[in-house]
């Protein structure tokens, strides 16, 4: 039952936000509802980590399409976590710009709808319904990307919508072909992820392969795999920072989850080449993103490219062999979500402090605003994969698994790209935070705040969100709680069925 309440809460919050109370109302409702969602999602995840599959089996026929296993529960709890920290961060961050109450209400309406559409992805078990909520995530977040209403934000939103929906059109065709494949295998069961796995061995291979490729490319557009990634740095840099945390931290991962759902189906079918495709596409993504990271000019785009890199790493891990590297991939999903959301909170703080997005015009941030500087260094180190942070541990697990599988070339390439990306990110972060200012004239206008005495007054909720988001980044680097370990094992088991 709690699964259904998890889905209902953001909708109730949407309705409550519409009420015309004073400004703090909308923020408060959103924080409370996402906190409640987190608690319920954690309960579902705890049940799932003990190996119980939570199926909602009410008398209504269509509710059979709701099913939560280890993998779904993992994604569910991550979405709820990022949604909570982002809601807390929003409360202070959005109050900063002196928005009109109506506009702020619009922000929270879209925010809650967006969270709802993401929460529905792991919960639903019917692939076409999942496709619909994937489309909904694009549509609910489009107006959030264009929220600042500048020329660049509108451009980013257009690109985002057009390319994502174009990919979704291909994926829809893929899901229909998948349905045809299931019918052709002679199975009369309902169209769900689990029944697909049982039907897979007798499916016509051509149909299954076509469906897999269409969905990989179509939804891969929205995850940001490399030839199709062009919209991602735009959308993930133009949106308000808390939204970037949602988009980059969790939205990409939850779409990747839909692709991952196809891997057990492909493995059940005779001689599918799903892992080879994953390995190639993943390595291309990691490599391209690593080199693009070296030459970014905008620090929010830098973290957006790092998302492309991380999505590539997860896909590569799956390609190295799910049975061995699957656990690492799941761990990487967790560490990416918590770390990337922290990074975008850090960029939000930096943006509040210096009001520019250009890397070149920020120097010596640590003297100007110690909080922003420290957050940026911590975020940069964490996302680049320095020990002892969560990303380091998960990347290490993946590389180790790759070596035991004797994929020496692929693992070597992956390691090289990760190192290049590390230097790319740290180069920029280091210059921004500790660098001395070279020419005062070149970067004059954005630095009005740098006058001594004009310290950034960071709202309390932003500080709280930064601390809350930093805890798992640090803790998961050296200690994985037993319950999380069980959940990760269950999630891996769902992939290798």
């Amino acid at each position, binding site marked *: 039952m709690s699964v259904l309440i998890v889905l209902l809460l953001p909708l109730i919050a949407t309705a409550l936000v519409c009420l015309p109370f004073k400004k703090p109302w909308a923020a408060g409702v959103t924080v409370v509802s996402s906190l409640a969602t987190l608690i319920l999602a954690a309960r579902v995840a705890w049940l799932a980590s003990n190996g119980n599959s939570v199926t909602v089996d009410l008398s209504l026929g*269509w509710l059979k399409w709701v099913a939560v296993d280890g993998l779904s529960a993992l994604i569910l709890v991550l979405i709820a976590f990022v949604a909570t920290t982002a809601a807390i961060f929003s409360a202070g961050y959005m109050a900063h710009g002196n928005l009109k109450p109506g506009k702020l209400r619009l922000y929270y309406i879209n925010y809650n709808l967006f969270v709802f559409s993401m929460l529905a992805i792991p919960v639903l078990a*019917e692939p*076409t*319904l999942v496709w*619909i909520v994937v*489309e*909904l995530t694009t*549509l609910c977040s*489009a*107006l959030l990307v*264009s929220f600042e*209403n*500048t*020329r*660049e934000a*509108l*451009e*980013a*939103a*257009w*690109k985002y*919508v*057009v390319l994502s*929906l*174009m990919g979704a*059109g*291909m994926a*829809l*065709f893929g899901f*229909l*072909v998948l*349905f*045809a494949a299931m*019918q*052709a295998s002679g199975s009369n069961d309902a*169209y769900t992820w689990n029944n697909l796995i049982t039907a897979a061995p007798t499916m*016509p*291979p*051509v*149909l299954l392969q*076509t469906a897999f490729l269409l969905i990989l490319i179509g939804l891969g557009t929205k995850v940001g795999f490399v030839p199709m990634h062009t919209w991602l*740095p*735009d959308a993930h840099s*133009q949106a308000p920072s808390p939204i970037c945390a949602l988009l980059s931290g969790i939205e990409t991962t939850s779409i990747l989850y839909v692709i991952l759902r196809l891997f057990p189906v492909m493995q059940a079918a005779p001689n599918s080449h799903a892992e080879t495709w994953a390995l190639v596409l993943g390595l291309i993504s990691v490599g391209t993103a690593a080199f*693009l990271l070296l*030459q*970014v*000019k905008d620090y929010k*785009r830098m973290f957006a490219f790092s998302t492309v890199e991380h999505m590539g790493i997860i896909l590569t891990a799956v390609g190295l062999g799910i049975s061995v590297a699957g656990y690492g991939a799941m761990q990487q999903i967790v560490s990416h979500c918590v770390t990337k959301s922290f990074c975008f909170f850090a960029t939000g703080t930096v943006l509040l402090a210096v009001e520019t997005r*250009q890397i*070149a015009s920020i120097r010596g941030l640590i003297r100007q605003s110690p909080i922003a500087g420290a957050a940026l260094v911590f975020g940069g180190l964490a996302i680049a994969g320095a020990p002892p942070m969560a990303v380091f541990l998960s990347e290490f697990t993946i590389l180790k698994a790759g070596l035991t599988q004797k994929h020496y070339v692929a693992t070597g390439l992956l390691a090289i790209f990760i190192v290049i990306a590390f230097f790319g990110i740290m180069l920029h972060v280091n210059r921004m935070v500790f660098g001395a200012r070279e020419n005062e004239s070149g970067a004059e206008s954005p630095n009005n705040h740098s006058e001594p005495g004009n310290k950034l007054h960071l709202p309390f909720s932003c500080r709280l969100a930064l601390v809350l988001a930093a805890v798992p980044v640090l803790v998961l680097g050296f200690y994985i709680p037993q319950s999380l370990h069980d959940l990760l094992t269950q999630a891996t088991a769902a992939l290798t069925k």
Partner: protein
Amino acid sequence: MSDTTNQLLVNLNALVTGLFLLTGFGIVAMRQARGCLNLFIVQSLLLAASAVFLGLRYTSDHLYGVALVNIISKPIIVPWLLRKTSPSEIYTRREVDQGLNIPTALLIALALAILAYFLAQPLLNSVAPEFRGPNVPIGIAGLLLGAFTLTVRREAVPLLIGLLAMENGAFLCGIAIARNLPLLVELAIATDGLIIVFIMGVLTRAVQKQIGTTAVGELASLKEATVEPAEKEGTE
């Protein structure tokens, strides 16, 4: 049902799917935004007709539902939503400057349609004979032509129509090969199409307010090379 009626229904279905392909070409080439929208409406009606013919042929009530959903949502609600959300200027816009000139675009579209037939062959060979028919290759062609429209057009409405045409193409395949998909799913997909129209309409209005044009294809300031996006605007 007798053999002659069945044959007649199959032929009628072939006719409407053929016309469907033609509207796909029309959407690639039509310059007037209004004309694009009209072609899309015709295309959706043809899709509904194909669903009815296939429904009669294979006595599937479910396909009538698909036809009904299509007739209500696309020709009626889509234009209404567009009128509500976006500036009326979009209808009168003529696209002078397309990415490609019309003859070239049509030639590429033709190549895509032929490609679609080749792509459909292996799929058709692995499904039962009753699922074969012109729907699959023409549906794939519709999908490809829609995607192609997205790459050559610059105006907001033709871009939106391109997206919806892609979905129509996927559906034309769907009614042939995935006939038993639950109706609830079809309804949800149709609703989803309406949300696409609404959101893109709102975005178009915002773009027009901010920049003064609905030629969203002209927006190209976000690039890796530009250090100062504000400066770029001046040089253009």
